């Protein structure tokens, strides 16, 4: 009996001691010159190596004695890694965060408030509004916009030509008729979809909701209310449901992760996709390079002819850790990566949308379509609890139940709205 009790007492003592030690740790802000080292976490695949090398070289020229460690992190389970890193005493000085994650970490005190330093960043006056919004919480700025991605419709120019469609649709109604023409021509192939739309693809359905004037949630004061059950939102969802049921043979309960590879197999006419997906479709390893000459893109049309629907602006931001020991050095490094020189390279080499509207014209060819679409963009509700809505799969589950016919649109939207209200206000 006694050894067990002894062991237990030891545990309790250890816990109390360490908990006390933990509670007493304070952030050390040093007034002496910062010597680094500077640790930066970038996500796998975000920045081309040449950009990172360039930034490091320019930084080294100014600070030859500071060691800079750029560490590439994987997307899988990244929030687990971020949670532990911020909880410990040695978080990285700079980290790249998906723009929908920022609010959560900013609200819990993980990121530094850089409102006062905003003007130090080149182009901060012309930063993309949605990305800037994703960095802003309660009027304070917590990160720097890094790069963006937006969605438009990628299509097979040859299939359009063969079906007698001479130009891309400029309204939702035209999209539907063009799609039906395509289904008439190619639909006998059981794998063919005029518009391949996996059921969980929330980011592709959002433009329809927004275009009709609906929204995911609205904020008054500090209280959020789910708004998907509004008549406008429901109208948008009805439109999408119509398109999906008539034009898509994709998995109504699946997600969009392999739509590019499916597209490359040659049985699909249109997909709603990000700009970088062109590269995946034509990738010699997993896609079909011969499609390069047969691809075109057009923005998601609005239900009002001639206009485009607002799209979700995806992308990443760069934040400085609240407990960083080298905030001044971190800022300088960030200024380089977020500045004109390297943002231009992000466009030309990386093929993404830069953080400032002034560089949007650098995109050419297909990427230019996406850059243009990005000018009419919206963001998800900027609440620290938004990440929890995403984690709870509320939107995806709602869409799936609508597309599979399990729930009617009014029922599904009202249930989703209630859930969103509850989660955002918790």
């Amino acid at each position, binding site marked *: 009996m006694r050894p067990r009790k002894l062991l237990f007492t030891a545990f309790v003592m250890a816990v109390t001691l360490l908990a006390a030690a933990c509670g007493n740790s304070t952030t050390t802000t040093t007034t002496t010159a910062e010597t680094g080292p500077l640790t930066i976490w970038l996500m796998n695949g975000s920045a081309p190596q040449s950009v990172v090398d360039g930034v490091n070289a320019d930084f080294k020229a100014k600070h030859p004695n500071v060691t800079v460690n750029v560490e590439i992190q*994987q997307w899988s389970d990244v929030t687990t890694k971020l949670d532990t890193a911020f909880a410990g005493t040695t978080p990285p000085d700079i980290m790249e965060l998906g723009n929908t994650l920022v609010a959560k970490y900013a609200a819990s005190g993980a990121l530094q408030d850089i409102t006062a330093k905003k003007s130090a960043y080149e182009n901060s006056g012309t930063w993309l509004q949605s990305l800037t919004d994703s960095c802003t919480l309660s009027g304070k700025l917590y990160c720097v916009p890094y790069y963006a991605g937006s969605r438009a419709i990628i299509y097979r120019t040859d299939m359009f030509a063969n079906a007698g469609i001479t130009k891309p649709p400029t309204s939702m109604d035209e999209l539907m008729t063009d799609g039906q023409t395509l289904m008439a021509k190619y639909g006998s192939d059981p794998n063919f979809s005029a518009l391949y739309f996996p059921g969980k693809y929330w980011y592709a359905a959002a433009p329809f909701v927004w275009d009709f004037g609906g929204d995911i949630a609205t904020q008054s004061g500090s209280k959020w209310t789910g708004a998907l059950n509004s008549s406008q939102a429901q109208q948008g969802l009805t439109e999408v449901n119509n398109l999906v049921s008539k034009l898509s043979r994709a998995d109504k309960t699946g997600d969009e992760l392999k739509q590019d590879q499916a597209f490359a197999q040659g049985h699909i006419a249109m997909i709603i996709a990000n700009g970088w997906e062109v590269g995946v479709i034509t990738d010699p*390893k997993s896609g079909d390079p011969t499609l390069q000459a047969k691809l075109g893109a057009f923005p998601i049309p609005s239900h009002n002819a001639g206009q485009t629907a607002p799209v979700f602006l995806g992308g990443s931001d760069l934040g400085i850790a609240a407990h960083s020991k080298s905030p001044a050095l971190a800022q300088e490094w960030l200024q380089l990566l977020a500045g004109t020189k390297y943002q231009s390279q992000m466009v030309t080499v990386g093929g993404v949308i830069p953080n400032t509207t002034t560089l949007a014209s650098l995109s050419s060819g297909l990427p230019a379509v996406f850059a243009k679409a990005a000018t009419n963009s919206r963001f998800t509700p900027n609440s620290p609890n938004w990440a929890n809505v995403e984690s709870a799969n509320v939107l995806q589950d709602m869409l799936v139940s609508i597309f599979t016919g399990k729930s009617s649109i009014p029922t599904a939207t009202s249930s989703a709205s209630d859930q969103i209200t509850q989660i955002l206000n918790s």
Partner: protein
Amino acid sequence: MSRRTFARTLYDGVGIVVFIVMMFPIYWMVSTAFKPGREILALTPVWIPLRPTLDNFRTAMNVPYFWNDVVNSVVVVLTVVALSIVLAFLAAVSVARFGFRGRTPFIVMIIVVQMVPLNALVIPIYLLLDQVGQVDSLLGVIAYYLAFVLPFMIWTLRGFIANVPVDLEEAAMVDGASRVVAFMRIVFPLVAPGLVATGIFGFIQAWNEFIIAYVLLSSSSKQTLTIWLTSFTTQHGTDWGGLMAGATLTALPVVILFLLVQRHIVGGLTAGAVKG
């Protein structure tokens, strides 16, 4: 006698069928590793690669820091296996051969410890290592892998040692050998196969562990192969060819190791298994 041969042939047939069923996913993994992308994503399955290629392996091994990852994994696993065999063996001898106060709590502890889900301990483990400055260090990872494999290894080795009758040691001691010498000369060779078997178990556990390595190791130069395997899935989708090539490469060392020692294992497992 011919009835026996018939039965054996029948069993051999069933054995081959079982082999095919169990190994089919492995076959699919290895063949995918050799297929070019278009064949991997074909809507009609391609059974045998029409245009086999080593590209996937090349891409997988050209990932930056791949060889660092290999070295790190090897260092971690070999250290863990070596230390755990020694520690587990000593503890197993103690539990198998001696009665002492604290024996029951010890046994209960090593059983209960295995019941705690690893994911729930990730944050506390990180915080502890952070306090002692061992985050982003292979030493911290080694310490934890050691703690995870020890309970099972102690338990299994205990069974092997307990299965060796004490009188064998006694006989050697009557002949004049000291306790330790008797033990080493008699018991150790009989238990060695069991050590090999539990060593392989520890090897596999440490070689394929993910979440602890992922959370603790951030420097690109310190990461292990399991983290390397996740690099094939980005927000742009999954590189199936690369992933399968990577998985094949990762599984290979263990299979080779097993083939080298399999003769010893079967003998070893039999010695300890029955008594429990």
